[in-house]
């Protein structure tokens, strides 16, 4: 009996190890490749670099203007959050905790967003944004990301607001708080977990998005990281070590942030999806 269990454990451990190697080795290999020179890149495919060439990093940073790309991606991602979170919180609060005529209608209307995915909206969004003069504008891209995530954000926030006890507002208002003040000072802080779930759920998607950004942005100086990486491949496709250095610089910050916050990150993802 005991022996049988241990064989089972060994099999499980081997499967997990193989899985980890499959998941991690390509990324480690990208890191190795980024430090090889051109000749070694083609001859020493598997292993560690014999000599570390950090000049790939300097060249990639300069040629792709990576500093600006990071800033562009940060602006777009943070900007979208700054629009999306207040907007969905306010609406979700009204729908979850206030009584008014047409409330279910408004909620169902906004939830329809679940049925209209971004992939379907790509081409007409280009047309609408062009007519509004929002092409090649970070602000336009932020508005679009925010709008496309309203349904999901509303849904997540409403779930958190509904679970708070009803007496909260009454007590706050007796203390002389205005309704909006009470929402901002009492209710929102209690739904912190909902805000975190939204940030985790959407932040990475927006940071990594190519499809919508590619439709909206054509000016080089406005390009986000994914756009400029894709563009770099077209232009410098022969210099692989440099390309790999660029990929490494673009991915390492994300991986570090993820590994440091993995517990709350994974919980947030599970919470967002199970609620969704």
């Amino acid at each position, binding site marked *: 009996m005991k022996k049988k269990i241990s064989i089972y454990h060994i099999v499980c451990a081997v499967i997990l190890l193989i899985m980890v190697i499959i*998941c991690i080795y390509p990324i480690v290999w990208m890191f190795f490749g980024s430090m090889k020179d051109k000749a070694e890149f083609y001859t020493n495919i598997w292993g560690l670099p014999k000599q570390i060439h950090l000049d790939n990093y300097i060249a990639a940073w300069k040629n792709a203007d990576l500093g600006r790309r990071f800033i562009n991606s940060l602006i777009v991602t943070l900007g979208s959050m700054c629009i999306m979170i207040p907007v969905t919180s306010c609406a979700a609060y009204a729908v979850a905790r206030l009584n008014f005529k047409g409330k279910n209608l408004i909620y169902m209307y906004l939830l329809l967003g679940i049925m209209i995915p971004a992939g379907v909206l790509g081409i*007409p*969004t280009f047309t609408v944004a062009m007519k509004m003069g929002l092409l090649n504008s970070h602000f336009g891209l932020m508005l679009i990301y925010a709008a496309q995530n309203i349904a999901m954000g509303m849904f997540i926030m409403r779930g958190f607001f509904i679970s708070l006890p009803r007496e909260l507002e009454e007590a706050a208002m007796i203390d002389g708080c205005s309704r909006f003040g009470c929402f901002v000072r009492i209710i929102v802080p209690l739904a912190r977990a909902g805000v975190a779930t939204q940030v985790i759920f959407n932040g990475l998607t927006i940071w990594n998005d190519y499809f919508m950004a590619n439709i909206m942005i054509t000016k080089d100086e406005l390009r986000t*990281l994914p756009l400029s990486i894709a563009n770099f491949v077209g232009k410098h496709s022969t210099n692989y070590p440099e390309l790999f250095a660029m990929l490494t610089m673009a991915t390492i910050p994300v991986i570090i942030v993820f590994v440091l916050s993995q517990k709350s990150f994974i919980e947030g993802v599970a919470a967002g999806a199970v609620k969704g």
Partner: protein
Amino acid sequence: MRKKKIDAFPYLMCLAAVVLFTLFVVLPFAVGVYTSFFKWDGFSDMKFNGLKNYLYVFQDDIYWKAIKNTFVYAILVTVLKNVIAFFLASILVKNFFGRTFFRTAIYIPVTLSYIVIGILWVWIYNPTFGLLNSFLSAVGLDQLILGWLSDARVALFAIIAVDVWKWIGYHMVLYIAGLQAVPKDLYEAAEIDGAGPLAKLRYVTLPMINSTIVINVLMSITGAFVANYDIVYIMTDGGPYHSTEVSLTYIMKTAFTDYNFGKANAMSVILFLMVLVFGFIQLKFMSHEDVYD
């Protein structure tokens, strides 16, 4: 008697969400449906041509190929992601040393963008210098060596494998959360009734994590229909010979290479109708919830 004054506060709270949603989701959607009935290059004057765009779409052999590929992609990705993720989750749901490490490591590809992953795998699949072929030749499987992305017979499957690779960790985490919520005493009760591992899976685990399965399957299916542009574009852009063409890559080419916005929008509307049923199930699922009184 004075008419009861309407309280504006709740409406003001909803205003921004409704305006934003209307302007950038509902309006583009309506524009998309409307322009699908016009001959239009996206910039100059539009000319009404009724259902002709839809007719062109259905007469287009490449479109049918793209649809077939999209379905193959969706079915394979959904089955593989869910089976592998469920299997890994059932190992990782137990508490043991190193559990967090395995979970974190398998999750890392989820955090990377399709663009980065795509470029990386194009190089892994490279026929001469790539990791995959050099691995195959190292273990003596030279007869399996292929131009993974240049061979029209396997290119689509090569991309599907990358998509599965990226998302396994995500679905695994959701399945772990689902499995953790199954009460332990149900398993004990089943054991007392003499249930073996398979019976426990069939009669306890699967029914108890029903909603997790629904969510995972919905996410993988809709993802394969409406969110696979980035990976296909960067790896093959639909080639060779349209063998990896999917709905989205063909829509983008029709709009921004051929400047046929009318036809591109007709294809977008058809794509919308194809995912409508999945969106509807998800909506039903979400609105079926406790109501605040």
